[in-house]
């Protein structure tokens, strides 16, 4: 159990670092996949089996594939090459500032402890569905509307303009 946690978290952190450090976006997308699978393993360790399955299906199966698809559509232009050192100071400052804030947060969170007795049926599909379709029914319906709006908006944004002369 302990080794599973450290293995999965090492996988997640290594994937996240590779995502932001990789040269090309396609490598970033594959590193993001590693992070997502590591987090799915952590969800299993946390007895959230349904969420682990959703994580793999929605993130690995839909979001990463969408990223890869867009990278393929854009072609070589998705990998811009050019002078990168222009704002080196700003980037270094943001790394230092965010790293310091993150370090303080991690140090504060590290001390959190709680007893962990898991009742029967925790994290099963039935239990999570009872929560979603019980106290969270209204947010669930709002999320469905949000997804519909997002799909319509994505199509409206990405569709080619056929009428010439429109505002670009």
């Amino acid at each position, binding site marked *: 159990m302990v080794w599973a*946690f450290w293995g999965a978290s090492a996988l997640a*952190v290594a994937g996240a670092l590779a995502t*932001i450090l990789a040269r090309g976006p396609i490598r970033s997308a594959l590193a993001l996949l590693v992070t997502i699978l590591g987090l799915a393993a952590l969800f299993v360790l946390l007895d959230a089996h349904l969420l682990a399955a959703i994580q793999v299906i929605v993130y690995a199966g839909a979001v990463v594939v969408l990223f890869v698809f867009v990278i393929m559509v854009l072609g070589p232009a998705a990998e811009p090459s050019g002078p990168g050192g222009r704002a080196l100071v700003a980037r270094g400052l943001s790394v230092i500032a965010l790293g310091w804030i993150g370090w303080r947060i991690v140090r504060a969170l590290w001390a959190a402890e*709680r007893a962990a007795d898991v009742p029967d049926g925790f994290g099963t599909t039935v239990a999570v569905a009872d929560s979603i379709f019980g106290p969270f029914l209204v947010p669930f319906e709002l999320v469905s509307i949000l997804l519909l709006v*997002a799909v319509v908006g994505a199509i409206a944004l990405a569709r080619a303009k056929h009428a010439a002369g429109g505002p670009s």
Partner: protein
Amino acid sequence: MIGLGHYLALSGVLFTIGAIGFTTRRNVLVALMSIEIMLNAVNLAFVAANRFRPENHAGQTIAFFTIAIAAAEAAVGLAIVVSLFRVKKTVRSDEADAMRG
């Protein structure tokens, strides 16, 4: 023994990596992936907090909503990237300067 603190600290580490990636990378695609890392870190915190307070499933339910919203965000964000590429022929965020004063 792995406790709640370990999971929350890991969540903080992942969120920090995502925030640094978002502010330092110029490629819009990588910036969007950094946002996904941050959303995943928050999800881990929700699920871990739910595991160590298992009277109800509020944390897992909110993590479920976060996954749905992240999918919508990725769809709209990538549509914006495609739209930007159509206008500017680039995916570098510092060349999207149409609103520069």
